[in-house]
């Protein structure tokens, strides 16, 4: 049990650290879930949604490409078959807007200074 837990810890942290705290450069590169990846990226919270879906239109869309193209999986379908968008963690790439052929998505830029704020780019 405890060894399982240790494995998981190593997995979530990615690169293993040796006893003296140095990184072992023979261990695999870090691999993170989408959520954990987002924790490494800086966001400045906006107060209003810049992405709004119209589920009366989304209902007519069979393939729902937004649920695939989004690099952070911001589009999910709930049990009522409604498309839910988590606009707070949007990377502002615009792929969903291009993919949305039925135009069930209203997409605008977040307010000035809000949204993703890259330090590396």
């Amino acid at each position, binding site marked *: 049990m405890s060894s399982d837990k240790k494995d998981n810890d190593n997995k979530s942290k990615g690169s293993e650290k040796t006893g003296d705290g140095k990184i072992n450069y023979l261990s*695999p590169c870090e691999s993170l879930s989408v959520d954990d990846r987002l924790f*490494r990226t800086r966001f400045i919270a906006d107060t209003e949604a810049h992405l709004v879906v119209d589920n009366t239109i989304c209902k007519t869309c069979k*393939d729902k490409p937004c649920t695939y193209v989004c690099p952070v999986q911001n589009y999910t379908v709930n049990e009522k078959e409604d498309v839910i968008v988590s606009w707070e963690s949007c990377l502002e790439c*615009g792929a969903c807007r*291009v993919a949305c052929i039925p135009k069930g998505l209203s997409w605008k830029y977040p307010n000035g200074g809000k949204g993703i*704020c890259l330090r590396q780019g």
Partner: protein
Amino acid sequence: MCEEEKFDLIIVGGGLAGISAALTAAREGLEVVLLERGEYPGSKNVMGGILFTQILNKLIPEFWDKGAPVERQVTKRTFSLLTEKSELAVSLNFRDFNEAPFNNTFTCLRSKFDQWYAEQAEEAGAEIFPETVVDSLIKKDGKIIGVNARGEDGELYADCVILADGANSLLARDEGLHQEFDGKDMVVCCKEVISLPQEVIEDRFHLEGNEGAALEFFSDAVGGVVGSGFIYTNKDTLSVGLGLPVDVSGDKQLKPYELLDRFKNHPCVRPLLRGGEILEYSAHMIPEMGFDGVPPLYKDGLMVTGDAAGLVNTSIFHEGSCLAMASGVMAAETVIAAKKANDFTSNTLKLYDEKMRDSFVIKDLKRFRRVPEFLHGSPQFFGEYPKIILDLIQKYFTVSETPKKETEKEIFASFRKEIGMLKGIKEGYKLWRTFG
């Protein structure tokens, strides 16, 4: 602001095109304001990671000695075809590229670079308004005379407006300069900046001093569809990412972040990334419609530059940054000429179009105008063919007791069966016609 107290020039967007325009116009004494929607120029900007600097070096000669936060000069480039367990690579290593101006090719992290670049424009006299989103343009008698900024900034007026608002240029679309974007022309990219110590990067990629490597991977790197994966070496980080067309992602139900994880774990890629820690995750779109998708570049009081005009050379060169900078400079030069003539209508602004057509920007796009059609219409070149060819090459290099002549016969027979001579010639011609 009222119409009387107007700027000479408003630039929408603080990326390479916009800042180049601001710097060029400010140096000629024009009253320029650059509107950036992010906290600072660069905060919304992402590219794979290669900055082509022939224009930058003209604007700021020997910028690499003047504090420009570029990462490494690219002396090594690799183009790899990946299948599930194999790699076929072409590697370039030209020592002359390690001498100034370093083949005008540097790895770069845009949030750092663009901040510095914008500071150079500010020092030249341009005003930069960050945290300013432009929702629409102001028109009078059919001429663009200003912009509507969201929030308290309100209306801003100028003799001329340059759109440099990037791949998602809603303003250019709203002005009718281009149609709604098509998923086949837009490539969605995701990217991780992965931290590794400088000496590990230099040992692993065989680099000395400030040399850098740019590695591009095709085929299985993106699940066997059109697109590519990349690793670029920065000083003490790697830029690792991939891109594929938006429509392919949707149609084939391929999720970019899942493909990125798969790419990072490819047996030929994994050892290059060992021990790395993710510093940042980002995504962006690249407009890859090519020459035939370039919109009208100007109208009365308005010019469009950079990604907003789809200025990306989609070929093996993958140049976008230098096209953006060149377009920004040429748009600004046109504003300077228009100011002298005191005419900001199409009559003068058509000079921008003429300059662009006379430069490498439009000439290169035209040279490779068949590439977008090839990329979209030839999935076999990204999935089926690499697999067949790498299998045959593997067979050729497999050591056994089979006499080489028999192996050669077998390989030839497999080629005829899998692709066929006639089709091989036809497909070869198609490649030559597109790129040759």
